[in-house]
């Protein structure tokens, strides 16, 4: 089990220049601390126009800065919206290779297609097309990274033969992931030999089924890349405090704020009838979680909120259903004061991470990363 941070970078109104700068600075401080504490990765989403919810429209810049400020933590560019109107595939290949070089081979690449009308409508994208363009791009990307010369004639995009440079520092290339929100996307990930990057905050049972399915299918996959990334990651909230009451209270505030922000977005399915988006994205899962079984504290099952013992239990449960990595959302709208966020990370590292360290060291000794 490895742990990481997961950034939407939500910024409360009013948006004067100091607010956005302060939020970004706080994120950098958190990432630097996470690196020192032994967290394995930091992920940043790509979102556009999602006011307050996510001011992270240029994650490659944010992550590059993170890499420059840290030594070990891996940087997860995810997900990159694999829709040509958002990101031209050549630019995706070039910019990820550059990030991999400047970070010294610490890049992870998450892929996806956006789930909101807010974004798809903003870029003038037909929602029916996004799964198809994603599929084309993920099949091209490893070739663009590894072949000296590359040309392509496809359905959503084409290019004559050119030399796409630079090439990634990691050989053969960085690990590839797929954002899994819609039901069945874990199958898409498995069939292509890509990691499953869970971005919903689902229940153990639901995730356990998805993991089983994923592991079964990936055995017979046709990898898009030059290696199979058989890893399952899930997203979670984190607020860890030695005093149970404070841990639960602050954690629930974080949870409630995030759920409220997510609810304001216009899910593609809500406004545009299409087979391409069978679920509303994050929201139904969040609602289910909010209403789902919790313990006496009222915290939904599996959410890493509360005292270290409770947070440890949640992480161990995720591990037991086959999850390899948990990426934590640690603040929303700055609702938790920065010093408390940092202290929560320290408390987690002090009391929870050691329970997983031996396994990580054992894996490293056996040749794992």
């Amino acid at each position, binding site marked *: 089990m490895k742990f990481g941070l997961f950034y939407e970078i939500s910024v*409360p*109104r*009013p948006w004067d220049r100091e607010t956005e700068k302060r939020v970004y600075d706080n994120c950098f401080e958190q990432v630097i601390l996470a690196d020192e504490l032994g967290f394995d990765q930091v992920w940043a989403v790509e979102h556009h*126009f*999602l*006011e*307050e*919810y996510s001011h992270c429209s240029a994650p490659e810049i944010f992550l590059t800065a993170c890499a420059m400020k840290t030594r070990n933590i891996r940087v997860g560019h995810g997900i990159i919206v694999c829709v040509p109107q958002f990101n031209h595939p050549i630019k995706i290949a070039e910019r990820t290779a550059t990030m991999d070089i400047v970070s010294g081979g610490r890049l992870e690449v998450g892929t996806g297609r956006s789930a909101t*009308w*807010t974004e798809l*409508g903003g870029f003038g994208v037909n929602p029916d097309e996004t799964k198809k363009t994603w599929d084309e791009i993920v099949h091209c990307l490893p070739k663009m990274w590894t072949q000296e010369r590359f040309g392509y004639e496809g359905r959503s995009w084409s290019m004559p033969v050119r030399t796409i440079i630079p090439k990634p520092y990691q050989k053969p290339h960085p690990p590839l992931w797929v954002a899994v929100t819609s039901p069945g996307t874990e199958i898409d990930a498995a069939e292509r030999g890509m990691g499953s990057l869970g971005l919903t905050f689902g229940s153990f049972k639901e995730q356990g089924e998805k993991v089983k399915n994923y592991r079964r299918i990936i055995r017979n996959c046709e990898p898009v890349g030059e290696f199979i990334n058989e890893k399952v990651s899930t997203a979670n909230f984190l607020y860890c405090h030695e005093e149970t009451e404070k841990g639960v209270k602050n954690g629930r505030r974080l949870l409630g704020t995030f*759920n*409220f922000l*997510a*609810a*304001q*977005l*216009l899910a593609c*399915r*809500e*406004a*545009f*009838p*299409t*087979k391409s988006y*069978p679920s*509303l994205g994050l*929201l139904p899962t*969040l*609602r289910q979680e*909010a209403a789902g079984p919790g313990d006496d504290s009222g915290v939904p099952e599996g959410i890493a909120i509360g005292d270290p013992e409770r947070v440890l239990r949640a992480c161990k449960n995720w591990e037991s259903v086959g999850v390899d990595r948990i990426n934590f959302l640690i603040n929303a709208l700055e609702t938790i004061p920065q010093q408390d966020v940092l202290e929560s990370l320290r408390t987690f590292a002090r009391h929870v991470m050691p329970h997983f360290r031996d396994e990580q060291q054992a894996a490293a000794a056996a040749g794992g990363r």
Partner: protein
Amino acid sequence: MPPRLGKLDSKEFAAKYAREILGYKTEPWTLKKAQILNFNHEIDDDLGDDLLPRTMHPSIPAYATFTIVACPESPVGAFSFGEVKIAGRAGVRPRDFVLRSFCDSEAARRELAQRWGYPSTPGQVKLTTRHDRIIGRVAVEGRAVLEMEMLDRDLIAGNDIQYIASMHLARNKEDGQLVLVQVDPEFVFSRAERGRPILRTLDNAAWGDERGRLKLRNPISISYAVADIALPRIRYICDPERPAFQGTTKVAA
């Protein structure tokens, strides 16, 4: 800073358009084989806030929904109605606020208002299906107040369509309270289509928007469906002056 919430003056709006509801204990209705034409259209964000009650907060981006429904069967016979709704959120749930509704049957207007608080007033409503298009028209005293079309009809599946539950500003006859009544129908689809949307006429003032706050921006989608609509018992009401998190009351299981 508090989140963006609607800014509608509910009392002023209700004085003009709200109907009386006879308590919250209605029996459900089923409207068999109803035809539904539903057009989602982005609207100006800031102005749109003026058309949402303070209970709700806007979606991002703001959008309006124009709906015309023709019901061949109901407990009061055939009727058709058209409505204009502003999309929003009640807490974390997507909900549409019905600005106004026109209906061509007096019996249906009375029942829809008394049972579910629909703000229905008299109007002529027509849904016409042709091979190349579906045409919806709402008129008041012969003058069109809403005209829309769905061109290039394309079959889809019923579960590709997501309708949003609606909120009706109504006065409860039992206690005189002004409330937002939530109505969350269920749909069983027998046909579903989508196409290219055209909005030909929208008379803002006729729909309760005398100050022109509903400014159209980017069209999103139009769909047509044939479905059995189950109008349920009322489950929740909200205080129109308080955010849904604080002002929602459960009235039935």
